[in-house]
């Protein structure tokens, strides 16, 4: 090999004949040897890269959602399934209602993710949550965006030209639903408060002394 020669000539050959005899053996190496070497290296790298990619994609798809449930979306598909295949003919307006519900939820999620962004970023940067949570968040942002687009496409399919109005209506529905949920929770919150503070009330809601 060539590097043998330079090594020898540089440090041993010239001056110090008494201690070292220059021994140079040159093996003839086939032209293909380096080619084979490089190609094995490259192929193994490519295999590793593709495997790694596939694995990360799989991991990403297996990450649990940031949101506890996806009922609005699931129900829409369920109802759509009923409308297309079921024996009982589901009215077209029911499908529309389910889509509006799904659209409203998609908007809620988009807003929620956007508004939580600074907090989640700080959590991640402080090391309060792990790498996985951060990945889940970024994943969820993309998925929610996709979900929203899907809703608009579905709206266009159900009623051509409706898409723009659909978005405006979904927005109102989203906020009104949130308000309704809050309104409906008044009673349960009241019960919790009474328990928490061990209050005794009469039938008219007055405090019993």
């Amino acid at each position: 090999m060539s590097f043998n020669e330079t090594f020898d000539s540089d440090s041993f050959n010239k001056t110090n004949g008494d201690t070292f005899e220059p021994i140079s053996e040159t093996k003839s190496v086939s032209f293909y040897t380096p080619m084979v070497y490089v190609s094995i290296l490259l192929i193994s790298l490519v295999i590793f890269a593709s495997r790694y990619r596939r694995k990360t994609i799989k991991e990403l798809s297996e990450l649990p959602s940031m949101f506890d449930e996806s009922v609005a979306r699931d129900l829409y598909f369920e109802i759509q399934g009923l409308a297309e295949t079921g024996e009982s003919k589901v009215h077209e307006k029911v499908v529309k209602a389910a889509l509006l519900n799904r659209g409203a939820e998609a908007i809620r999620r988009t807003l929620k993710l956007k508004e939580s962004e600074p907090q989640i970023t700080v959590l991640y940067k402080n090391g309060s949550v792990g790498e996985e949570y951060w990945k889940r968040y970024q994943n969820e942002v993309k998925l929610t965006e996709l979900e929203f687009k899907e809703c608009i496409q579905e709206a266009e399919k159900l009623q051509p030209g409706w898409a723009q109005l659909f978005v405006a209506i979904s927005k109102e529905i989203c906020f009104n639903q949130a308000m309704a949920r809050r309104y409906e929770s008044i009673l349960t919150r009241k019960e919790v408060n009474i328990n928490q503070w061990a209050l005794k009330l009469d039938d008219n809601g007055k405090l019993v002394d």
Partner: protein
Amino acid sequence: MPQSYDYDEKAETWPFFAMAVLVVVLLPLTLMQIYELFNSQKEEKFGEQTSTLNELNQVLVPQSIKKFRAKYKVKKSGVWSKKTLIVCLGWCLVAVIWKTIDSNEAVREAASTIFDPYLLLDISTSATEKEIRSAYRKLSIKFHPDKVAKNLSEQQRAVLEEQYVLITKAYKALTDEVTRENYLQYGHPDGPQATSHGIALPRFLVESSASPFVVVGYIALLGLILPIFVSRWWSRTQSVTKKGIHVKTASYFADRLFNFKPSQVVTSDLILDWLSNAEEYKIMYPHLGPKVFRNLLNDHLQRASNGEDLNEIKLRVVAKTHSLLFGLLDVSTNFRNTEISLAAIDTFKSIVQATPVSPESQIFQLPNVDQKRFSEGSVDDVRTLGKLFTYDEKKIGQILGISDESRLQETLKVASFIPRLKLLKAEFKVPGETVVTPESIPHIALKVLVVSPKHKAFPPSKFPQVFFEEEQDFEAQKDPFASALEQPPVPQTFAPLFPVERTGGWCALVMLQKDGKVIQTPLVVDRLSFSNLDNDFDKREIKDVEASFKPENWVVGTIKIPFSQPAPPQNGDYFFRVVLKSTEYFGSDLDFTLPMMVRDPPSEADSDKQYDDDSESDSDGEGDDDEDEDDLDEENDSDYTDIDTDTDGEEEKSLVN
């Protein structure tokens, strides 16, 4: 490769290698050990603050918990710990190796052949040519074969001659062009010396029958052991967050916060539900589920006893809540959720005191209380320790349902030593400034008094201003938090039912009053003198506060809370809610509003106003703010219109900011 390698048969090199490795490992270890030793001594200097409750705290511990504590006691490493032993052994080994090197002929020989002209001529490396010449001349006179004494033996003569040759060589090396070149390039005036490349391993390891083992050893080391260690270290750092909880637990808490519906009411039960789902418990007891853990936590709060086996599980589950709750608090404050943060700390104290959160928690945390008799018999509405101490001892015994005199004394002692915080002075402070200037870096400086629930109330104005003054020298300005650290650490918590002995203080939370949300992660206040608790300033005996109050009998505590953001750029008043919430006791919390008055530096007008809050009377701070009313109204309006025009559903509302 053409050459044959030399093995280190004379042990010339490998001892050096071994020693280098040893020293590289030992030095940091030793330093760490010394640092720890030094630090622990520093801690001891403060001394443990002995609370009068310490003895009772031991006596009242149930047998089962005593056993548990003995079993899981963490041994504190002293001077004679295992680590110190290892370090000492390591240094001994270094000494042994040093000895071998020192007595090794081969090494010595190698060292003597090293050619250093400066050493030979006995001059410094920066010597000028003139100095070199004169040194050479002096030495050559001494060693010249013609000049030496005639009466020397043959052998001595030879030595001197050799020395002379060396000196001449050295001189040439520094003056003659060719020799100098040789010296610089090869390290010897004669030109290159024989170099050999060896392996720092004895021959027996590499040659003959042992070589396969060495190869296998290398493969094992590089291919197995190293990767395993690295990956284990990596996965361990990855599985725990910086706050010390499992990443899965942290993710779970973050999910709960993220999915939290504003229509829910946060209660201690909800927090306990969350805790029961911690990954830590799953790892400790893979065969048990969250429901079991939840029940165990509940049993702990109800002070219910379980069987022997379950009891240990329960105590371990309870002991773990400490880090989990701090983890949850970290996540919830980052999500800016006030309700959950406060509920988490309430849950904390309820676990520490094994008392559920209820309106009677302050009373029920005490030992020996008959909860049934208390609930049935209470004529007056006694819910606080302070109220309890307005009655005489006999009546207290009746209220709490304790008929045994000695047990009543125990209970009273505990009750009177549960610390209450009394706010004397609170302000936003910028070091070196009299006011908070726009965009400065303020911190919250508090003066508090640790008082007992039995103490008679007195207004903070009883303290002359000198008590609150701090040195304003350069050091204090450079590190304004140092003065708070000079206080002794808080004493052990009275918590006989908690699985481990514990100390803990207060969590300082800061909220923005405008939106009512937390603005920074909590600071743990764990240094405060409790010596005031020994004062006998009994509210049942003191009739005339004026006459019996002596400020010099009281120790004023200092709390400094760093503020996470700079002051706003605009002048004005900004209001913050500061909550000091005890993680240990019910009835020890402090909750007040503190305005940050941002003003230009006081060259034009003196706006040096401080806000003195006291929980006893109306604070005068609020009265001063009329001139800023317009500012705030404006803010209010914009907030209002925000809601009216578009986006604000409650789900969304909770996320604004």
